């Protein structure tokens, strides 16, 4: 267990190192590099830019600049927003809750529906339900998230008027119910793709477990099918799903960016696009690095959780 943890931890550290190198390369691909934000300012002459470059050490060798940049990243100095001068981490923090709310609720939806579809597809293999679920999942994976959102807005907001077309709450009404009302459509839109992925994996995992000896034993003992499913199959099939949840995080974040744009949801995705529009590169870079670090950490946590639950790893 201890060896596993240390091994996994060092892997994550190496991964963070590589992630930071990729981030640094992207930062330097931006025309004007880290000073891009000032290149647009008419009161800055080329001489000023050159002098700033000298002052900030941007004419040193790239590896030295990288070490400097990475060190400041570790210390929590992520630069300041070009728009309002606020520290980048503060700006991200202000938008984090909205994104986590959206991602959390859509993950709950995806897990609940996806698990059900997956188990039913496995227990009723090759049935009409299974076939439709398979085809449905492939179609769901092919629908552009933003288009699904637009169609949803058209049907449920503009035609039927049941759900709000955007924003997180109605101004002047901050009740929990109001938040929930605004949350329904974006979280379902974001969940669609993940329901598809989750149900496919859950089906495979359930089929794997069903064919194992202990299920035969349980059946031989005369347990009811329902009891076997609930007690022996689902728990074991859900175990690899924890790892999957971690692996799906980048695509959830991608979906969140698009969903937030369509529904004017004030989260990190919206912030990313706004910052791009303003050429606010410190925030853009901050979000890029923040999301990647989030992904690495969540995958680490997922593996540790699996290790704690799974006796095969826990006891080794």
């Amino acid at each position, binding site marked *: 267990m201890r060896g596993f943890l240390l091994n996994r931890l060092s892997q994550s550290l190496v991964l963070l190192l590589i*992630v930071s190198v*990729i981030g640094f390369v992207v930062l330097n691909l931006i025309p004007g590099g880290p000073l891009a934000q000032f290149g647009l300012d008419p009161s800055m002459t080329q001489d000023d830019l050159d002098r700033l470059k000298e002052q900030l050490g941007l004419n040193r060798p790239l590896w030295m600049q990288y070490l400097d940049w990475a060190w400041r990243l570790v210390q929590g100095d992520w630069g300041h927003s070009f728009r309002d001068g606020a520290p980048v981490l503060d700006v991200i923090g202000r938008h984090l809750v909205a994104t986590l709310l959206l991602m959390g609720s859509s993950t709950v939806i995806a897990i609940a529906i996806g698990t059900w579809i997956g188990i039913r597809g496995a227990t009723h293999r090759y049935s009409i339900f299974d076939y439709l679920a398979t085809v449905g999942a*492939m179609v769901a994976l092919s629908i552009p998230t933003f288009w699904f959102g637009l*169609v949803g807005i058209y049907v449920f907001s503009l035609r039927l008027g049941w759900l709000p077309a955007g924003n997180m709450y109605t101004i002047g009404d901050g009740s929990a119910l109001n938040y929930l009302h605004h949350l329904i459509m974006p979280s379902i839109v974001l969940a669609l793709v993940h329901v598809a992925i989750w149900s496919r994996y859950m089906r495979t995992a359930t089929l794997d477990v069903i064919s194992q000896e202990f299920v035969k034993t349980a059946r031989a003992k005369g347990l009811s099918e329902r009891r076997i499913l609930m007690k022996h199959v689902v728990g074991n099939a859900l175990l690899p799903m924890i790892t999957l949840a971690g692996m799906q995080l980048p695509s959830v*974040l991608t979906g969140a960016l698009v969903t937030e744009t369509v529904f004017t949801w004030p989260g990190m995705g919206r912030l990313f696009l706004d910052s791009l529009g303003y050429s606010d590169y410190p925030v853009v870079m901050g979000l890029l690095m923040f999301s990647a670090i989030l992904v690495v950490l969540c995958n680490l946590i997922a593996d540790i959780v699996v290790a704690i639950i799974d006796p095969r790893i826990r006891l080794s």
Partner: protein
Amino acid sequence: MTAIVANSHQERWWNSRTAHRFMNHHLALLGMVMIAVLTLACVLGPYLLPYDSLYIDLRARFAPPFTGHHYLGTDPLGRDLAARLFMAGRISLLVGFSAMLLSTLIGTLVGVIAGYRGGWLGTTLMRTVDGFLSFPSIFLVLALAAALKPSPMMITVVIAATSWMEVARIVEAEVRSLREREFVLAGRMLGLSGTHIMFREILPNAIGPIIVAATLTVARAILMEAYISFLGYGIQPPLPSWGNMLNGAQQYLGTAPWLAIIPGAAITIAVTSFNFIGDGLRDALDVRGDHT
């Protein structure tokens, strides 16, 4: 053994078991037909329609579908939506297809080298793959697309640069498992160069999984192009693409919903088709599934 006999040169490829299995896969066939129809429509459509995709007619703004010869209606500038849809399809399919070629090339190269060489080089390459996979792809694509000049060529390169990792992983695993096989040892004993063994001896054995992954990559590349063009950082107007036709459609959702619904449906049909084909190929080529 039978598979080898069936695939030998004695018989034509369309009689092989692989071809039969593919033909029996109804969804894959449906996908093939839809892609064929869509491609034909995009290639020939613009010549058959009475309007040019760039012809602006302010008297005909916001015409709903089936108004006169505007079969799919018109956009806010009075341009014919059908003509734009087909011209956009050319760009979107071309970008999707080229991005697939490029990303498969990069992925195969990285995968073969990492899998065959192994050691510190292999580890470094595969950890880099993990590193790229840690970024939500759209963040990376948008940051790059905003920084670079958004020509169709550049968009293709940016999409390819962020979608090669899947292929690299598949090829690496495949090559690593083949590396110690007898035919590779035989090749080494014959004194063949590393490059020859990698690309002429090992790679052909991994072609099945590569084809499947490449098909699914087309689907993903078309989607990615749609995402970034929708957000305004992809293909730039006046050049139409399915994604940028949807850019701005949201504000007309109440008055002209067809502006949003039609291009999105085209994207969904194209992407679904490629996913169906990929699924059929996976069954036909007997590639173990990963269900993504």
